Each structure stands twice: as C-alpha cells, then as structure tokens.
C-alpha cells in the first residue's frame, strides 16, 4: 500500500481495513490478521498497527478479545457505508463550494454525471 505523506499511517491503515469491511472482503465476525501479520503486510511497525486497531476499536468497527484476536463487529458494514458516503458527500460539497460553485450547479453536475455513468 502506498501511504499519503501527511496523514498518520495508522489512520490510513484503519481506513483501508474499513474499506475491506465495506467491500465485503471482511465479513461479520471475521477474525482479523494478527498485529504481526498486518505489520508485515503493510510494512509498518507493530506500534503503528496497534494504533490502527485501537482506532478501529474506538470507532466500534472491530472488537478485540483478549488473547484471541480482533473480530469484525457484526452489523457494522452498513454503518461504515453510511458514514463513508456522508464523508465523501461532505468533502465533495465543501470542495465545490470552495471553488465558488452554486448549489444548483452542484446538483446539475451530479445529475449529469449520473446520466453519463
């Protein structure tokens, strides 16, 4: 995975794991890899991986059972999807507004984009 330079790596890894949940690559109650396995997969230190998993846990996306491992929380996929869409829309609107595009123009562009899709 290629990381962006100015966003903490543990945040980017947590996002990547959330994307896997949303995409259905990781399903309800699936066991995540161990910190060590993830550390080699993403080529980051164990400390960074611990932080990524702690973030996922604090956001309620995974559950960690002591001595057993971390698991995808059942039913979290829909929640993550809703949150991700909200984020994307918010980001899209704020960028469009920063460029001075009006609400009507935004809507028109989205409609046009969907028609051409």
């Amino acid at each position, binding site marked *: 995975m290629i990381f962006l*330079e*100015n966003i*903490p*790596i543990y945040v980017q890894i947590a996002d990547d794991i959330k994307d896997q949940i949303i995409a259905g690559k990781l399903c309800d109650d699936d066991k995540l890899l161990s910190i060590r396995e993830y550390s*080699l997969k993403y*080529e980051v230190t164990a*400390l960074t991986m611990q932080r990524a998993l702690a973030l996922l846990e604090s956001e309620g996306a995974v559950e960690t059972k002591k001595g057993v491992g971390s698991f995808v929380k059942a039913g979290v996929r829909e929640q993550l999807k809703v949150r991700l869409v909200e984020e994307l829309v918010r980001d899209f609107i704020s960028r469009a507004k920063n460029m001075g595009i009006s609400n009507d123009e935004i809507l028109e562009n989205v409609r046009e984009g969907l028609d051409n899709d």
Partner: protein
Amino acid sequence: MISIKNLSKSYGKKAVFKNLTLEFSANRVIGLLGENGIGKTTLLKLIADILKPDKGEVSIAGETVSRHTRAGVSYMLSANNFYGFMKVRDALNFYRDFYEDFDYERAVTLCHEFKLHPKARVKTLSKGSAERLCILLCLCRCVPLYLLDEPVAGLDPKFKHGAIKAMLANTCEEQTVIISSHLLRDLETIFDEIIILKKNDEVVTANTDEIRESGKSVEQFYLEVSE
C-alpha cells in the same frame, strides 16, 4: 533506554560533538537523521562501544556502555570488516561462533530470500549484495538493541522492500531499532520516532504520527527543522 549525557568526541582537531545530551526511547523504531558529516555514524559507534567518548557518558538501560553492554547490541558492520578469504557461508559461521544469540537457520533462510549464494566471496559481492549480507547478519542476532547505519542506501527497490520486511519480521515490540539514514523517504513509514542531529549539538526529537497529524509530511518537517 539510551541516554547520552554531556558527550564530547573529536577526531584530532575536528570536534564532532562538544556537549551532546539526548535520550532514545525504548521499544521503538527510531530514525537518526541529519546532514552528511553531522555525526550519525559516530553516535551509533559510541552506543555500540566501538568508539569511546572523550568526555561525557553513554548508557544503555542505566548501564554505562562497556564490554558488558556490547552483548545486548547488534551493530550493522560494513562488508569491508570481513576477511578477504571469507565466503558468505563463512561470514554466517563466524557470526554463529561469535554470538550465542545468532539465529543461524533464520540467516540461511534470509540468504536465500536476499539472493546471496553461500559460496560467493564477500569481497567480490556487489555493493547491494554486500549490504544485504550485513543487514541479515545484524538482524539475525536476538538482542534488545539494533543499530543500522544507512542500511538501504545501496539497494534497488525490490530488495529495499525485502530488507524493510526483514527488519520488521526479525524484531518485536520489546526491541529497539535505531536506523541512521539520509534517505528519509525510503524508511519514513517504519519510523515511530525521528531524532534529528543539528549543528552545535542541537537535537530535535519528534513522533512521526504527531508530525503527520499536524498535516505535514515527515520530509517537510525535516527540511523545516534543518534550515
């Protein structure tokens, strides 16, 4: 973990450190940065007890560095430290005989991964191959502290990833790894912390996540600090 107090070190008339004080935290992968000639290698050698300070103190886990602390430190040698007659296999055997904590089997596996032929002469290895040999010898010891001096400078991208993976696979959270580098981009994703040496014994210590949380890249931060 490592504490440097009021350290001074000169080579003849050339003073590298006049009064250096700094701390390295334990259980982290730490990048030791700074421009060429600032003293990164000298500092690593002082921690490894290869060089002696003129004044001041270097201690590891509360113990002043000496022959006793050496046993707990794996310092990455450069290839010209091996005898001319040595083959890759001899270098491995040398480490096995010399260090009780050397994981010979792991070293043989890594030789294969790093495309090092056991019968190749160390002297005739390419720069990149020699560097891979030195990295693997350093990492296959099992100690609390690893010191690697510019480990990936001569590696092509493929082996660079292999070397980074080997560094991560061979060390655990209870170990400390200090890596000196002027190639920040190659290694910044595995640094938990960075320590930047500046002129006049000035030192900047920073946590890489905190740098990125402030919206900066580690390289940007380094450039700003080194101005």
